[in-house]
């Protein structure tokens, strides 16, 4: 298995504006595990992150309160088995590795919020969407799960969507970033001429 590489729906890696004010990166390989656990289960008690927020656990994984009674755990590539094993499954609990099924982008930089606000109608300001915020919302007409997960003091959003929408979402976000100096790779334009 180890020699079989994960194929991302977005294979352009990372692209940045010339001034570095916004960077768009493919984060498909991120391990993504979804946990659904009823209140009162050991899993719910262990995860213990309220809906709408996130925190790093002792293993460095990002645990997100995605929806009521639902969590998503993001980890480094290849951590699926470890993360799944870490969740207690007593009671009515479902743990699913959704790594393959979710495209994921990371948008970082001082202009990240402004760029995303071109195609997302949610208020992404620091007060409504602080670092650690977890929410769902449409981005470029694609239903997405979001985490505000700043990196190195820079604003950063981790955004995932159903894998089949991944390429379109990347194109839509890249198009939104062009205003801030990002050059879209040839063939990835939203409105090619």
């Amino acid at each position: 298995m180890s020699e079989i590489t994960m194929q991302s729906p977005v294979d352009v890696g990372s692209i940045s504006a010339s001034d570095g004010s916004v960077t768009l990166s493919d984060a498909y390989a991120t391990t993504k595990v979804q946990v659904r656990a009823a209140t009162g289960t050991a899993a719910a008690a262990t995860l213990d992150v309220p809906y709408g927020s996130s925190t790093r656990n002792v293993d460095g994984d990002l645990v997100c309160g995605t929806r009521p009674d639902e969590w998503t755990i993001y980890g480094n590539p290849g951590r699926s088995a470890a993360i799944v094993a870490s969740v207690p499954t007593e009671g009515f609990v479902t743990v699913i590795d959704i790594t393959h099924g979710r495209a994921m982008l990371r948008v970082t930089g001082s202009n990240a919020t402004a760029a995303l606000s071109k195609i997302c109608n949610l208020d992404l300001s620091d007060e409504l969407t602080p670092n650690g915020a977890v929410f769902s919302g449409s981005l470029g007409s694609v239903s997405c799960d979001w985490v505000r997960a700043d990196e190195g003091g820079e604003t950063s959003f981790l955004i995932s969507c159903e894998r089949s929408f991944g390429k379109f979402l990347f194109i839509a976000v890249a198009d939104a970033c062009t205003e801030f100096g990002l050059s879209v790779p040839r063939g990835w334009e939203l409105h090619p001429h």
Partner: protein
Amino acid sequence: MSNRLPTQPGEVIDRSKSLSFTWNGRAVTGFEGDTIASALAANGVDVFGRSMKYHRKRGIMTADHWDPNLFLQVGDEPNVRAGSRKLQAGMVVSTQNVWPSLKFDLAAANQLLGRFLSSGFYYKTFMRPRFLWPLYQKVLRKFAPGGEIHWKTSKHGAYDKRYAHPDVLVAGGGPAGMGAALAAADSGARVMLVEHYTELGGHLRWGDDAQRARAAELGSACEAHPNVEVLVDSTVTGRYDHNWIAVNQRSHPIAPERLVKARAGVMVVAPGLIERPYVFAGNDTPGVLLAGAARRLINLYAVRPGEKAVVMTANEEGDAAVADLDRAGVEVVAVLDARKGEGIVSVEGKGRVTKVTTTDGRTLSADTVVTATGWTAPTSLLNMAGDRPIYDPSAARYFSSGDLPPNLLVAGGVDGDGSTDDLEAHGRATGALAANRALRRRHDRVSQTARANPPTWEKPTEMADDRTPLARSAHPECYRSSTHGMVDFSEDVSSKDLVQASKEGFDSIELMKRYTTVTMGPAQGKLETVNAAAVLADANQVAMADIGTTVWRPPYSPISLGALAGRIHEPVRRSALQDWHEAHGASPLLAGQWIRPDHYGDAMAEATNVRSNVGLIDVTPLGKLDLRGPDVPKLLELVYVNKWQKLEVGRVRYGTMVAEDGVVSDDGVTGRLGENHWLMTTTSSGAGAVWEMLEDWLQTYKPEWDVHVTAVTGGLTSINVAGPNSRTLLDRLVEDVDLSAEAFPYFSVRTGAVAGVQNCIIWRIGFTGELSYEIHVPSGHALHVWEALLETGADLGCAPFGVEAQRILRLEKGHYIVGQDTDGLSKAPTAGLGGLVKLDKTDTLGLPELKHAYERDDLPILVGIQTVDGTIVPEEAAQIVDGDSNRIMGRITSSRMSPTLGRSICLGQVDPSLSAAGTEITVLMADGKRIKATVQEHHAHVDHEGARQRV
């Protein structure tokens, strides 16, 4: 530049930057900072275009955005507002709506026919004879106003859009608006200040030194304030529920126009006032302009508007215009003070004013007439919030009724009159109040939003609205002289037309508007609404306050369709294999949101290969739902028409869903992977609806059931391996599953490794009618498996096949497709589900309707059909009729040429009387021909016993 004045103290042009452009083919120059109109006026241009209906010569009237006479063609862009669009070097500017030329326009003959072209002319004239309407259309199109679009060569590119969430949005960048913005921002609110023109300042921009200085100070303060975002050359075009506000930003480096969708806590409406024209004979003659226009031309653009002027003034703006004209060297022949009852009766002149007749009987020689007769309060945004403004005769304009939602406040001229300081102070008080309300709202939002941290600041105490209203200055009611003139310059509607409409019974202002089209042109009533109401009130002999108003709806001013469209986001779904399909010549097929391979060049050959060897098809769009929990069987019993409680682990079953009305809604195969673990598949198009329906049941009606539903459609790439060699092929790649017929029978499911990829779900089913396996592979590894299958199966004839080949194969096998062979009326008996439907179940969605449906004998029946002449393939949706009559007895739902049988094959819905095997039916083709066909014993045309797939 014959009309360019020496340097003016407030001019906005940069005389060091000369810009060359062309006007109707003639090379001319202007300066940076000029509008197109000011540059042309400086070059001595009097006539800019022709009116819409009568093709009367028209010149500058308002010299701003609202000027109805300044719509010009600029390059490939039509309807450019030359009164506000800034001049750019190289512009190719020309007149619109004239032929053959601006000077000699044939359509000007309409003026001679004017008495026959009254309101309702089109309605009355072109109704009869009806058969001539297509001819009328062709002719009328020749006279359509507006410029030309060159959409095949246009290089405008895409328009743009963004969202914003200001606490306070201020519409209007005059003294009140800027005051409001600054006060709100000082209070801690995030402010978006939207100004219609390219600079902040409002009417102060063309005012005296003190006014201009104050405008500059306020503008600089707004620009510098960290809490204020200033959008100039932008218009608030609409206000919708809950302060959803649309802003059209016209000048932005990234796009010709950008639509800003703002959700504001509070909106402050401070648009100022718009000067309105005066109605008299000849009031649309070039050279007749408003006081504000004269002042803007002189003070902003250093353009002398004429040589000899008559000024009719009823207010300070007119008085100031007299001073400005005098300073600009224009001879002011007479000043007619409307406050003293003086005024204009008529104007004469063809391409320019030559004579003016006054109410005191004088005839004056002049080339320019300047009127200052009052204001329109642009209450549009208030109307959009439900306000119905009230007319105040003492001020001769409309004011808000005060019946406004708390998230909308009015500031400045719309509220009343005053000095610059008064207006700014009113704005500041309004801004502080707006900030208070908006910050209280923001505190609530932050407190109540799950993703936000609790606010670290105190919620402000509610502030009382103790603003002192602005005074209302007395103003004479100057609307129309003793003569008739133009009311709506955009639509060529005169006061005479309005009086005539009233006489014809259109005496309500709303009816009159629709009958005459007054206020319906590009000015959107800003210039003509009040005059229209006054003329109607006069015609009806009622007080103006009783005549009412039309309702201003969005947009505040016209907006381009491109801006409304913005960036077009139409998501396309791609399987993990789509790049491979495209690289290997697949013809794309858009199926809902999915893009799929229709075929790789020869669908018939692809189908034949499946029957002979083995083929692969990417069926990822199949909806896939991972179901977990002890109560999954209950859920399946509820949503499927058949039974599920006893399905064993390792088995799959076909199921059909019906809606509450018994109509077939979806179908698919569901397999039991473990005791409490199932995988459901749905149709590609129904995946979302089925998921939503399951969640609806689980969250709303059966919350006590322990079931978790997870959509895994994109996570599992689905590959159907079909054909007599499919088992041989899979045997080479599947490591830990016994694929023998005994160990892995038809309708079974196994989990194992394929080509080294773990956790693949393999089930044995057959949509094509062949021995086949459907493999669901973790999508990140799908390409590896797909390529391994093709490579390993090369000697077995393994090749990909597309959707078209699959459709052929399934039709040969007689499998129906929900939504194609059924429709919104097809109930279970129609689909021929027979024994699948278990009417003895205690509960199933649509069960009562199903029981009723099975008692009926009149429902259409889906049958296999073959044409007598096997070379003819009836069109899908071709009607099945009763012999030579046109009585419809059914329709062909699917049809193809079968490569296996070498003849056409069909499925179709027929009346029960035609459903018996062997019945001859008539199919009405699209070309009108009738062909004979025969109803078959089975849906399947090939291997109805299933011998090929159950090996």
